[in-house]
């Protein structure tokens, strides 16, 4: 093996057995704090989200109740018009002996 090939072999092996570099304790601490702070923020976001969803559901229920009540009032008056129409019709039949 010539000098060049030997040199290349030595270069290729120069990172063999290299020790792992340690992450700075300061950076490690920063990462840990960030994870812990993120959890606190996530909790409060979840909490306000629950309240918002509850408010929307309550609104939907209220709208439905209002609609049902309005409908039942108007259907009461429409029932009266059907009755009066029916009685007019049948009196017409009686009047003309049809």
């Amino acid at each position: 093996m010539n000098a060049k090939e030997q040199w290349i072999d030595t270069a290729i092996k120069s990172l063999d057995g290299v020790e792992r570099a340690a992450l700075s304790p300061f950076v490690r601490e920063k990462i840990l704090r960030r994870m812990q702070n993120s959890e606190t923020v996530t909790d409060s976001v979840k909490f306000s989200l629950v309240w918002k969803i509850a408010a929307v559901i309550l609104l939907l229920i209220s709208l439905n109740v209002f609609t049902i009540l309005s409908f039942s009032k108007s259907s009461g008056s429409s029932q009266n018009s059907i009755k009066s129409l029916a009685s007019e019709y049948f009196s017409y039949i009686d009047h003309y002996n049809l």
Partner: protein
Amino acid sequence: MAEKNFILRLKQGHQNAYGELLDLFSDKVFNTALGLLQNKEDAEDITQEVFAEVFQSIAKFRQQSKLSTWIYRIAVTKSLELIRSRQRNKRSAIILSLFGKEGQIHVSDIAPFYHPGASLENKEMSAILSDAIRRLPLNQRTAFTLNKLENLSYAELAAVMNISVSSVESLLFRAKQKLRELLGEYYEQNMK
């Protein structure tokens, strides 16, 4: 089973699980990023981003792979994203310089990288090898770095890179061939 319980504790947000996660993986992630990026500050930034991603995504982790595979994959992805964005910026700067804008471009202005874990007698040689590694295509660079610096087996590498074991073997073979070629050129230019 132990890993499953650990992942469950992470998903449930147990505080001491975060500390354990860092104990197990912070140096691995840092060294992966350091090997790929060859810059301590960049590697520290990427390490922070990796754990932020792990923390945000752990609830969606379906355990189809090992936890270590998943974390290595995130570390590699984020490191390569940074390399690619720097390459794009460099290309834009070169184009701008052709039009006489944005000052001068220094193409080979990268300082030599001395791996903090390399032994004293190998420091210079390892810097030359690191420079050659930097010139490899990204997939070869990833395979070589993870195999050489993180001692990942072919099977582990295949899982991290989401390729077959035979593809890993091929990548490593081509990486070593290319490195020999680059080192040969360096020898011709500097050692004769």
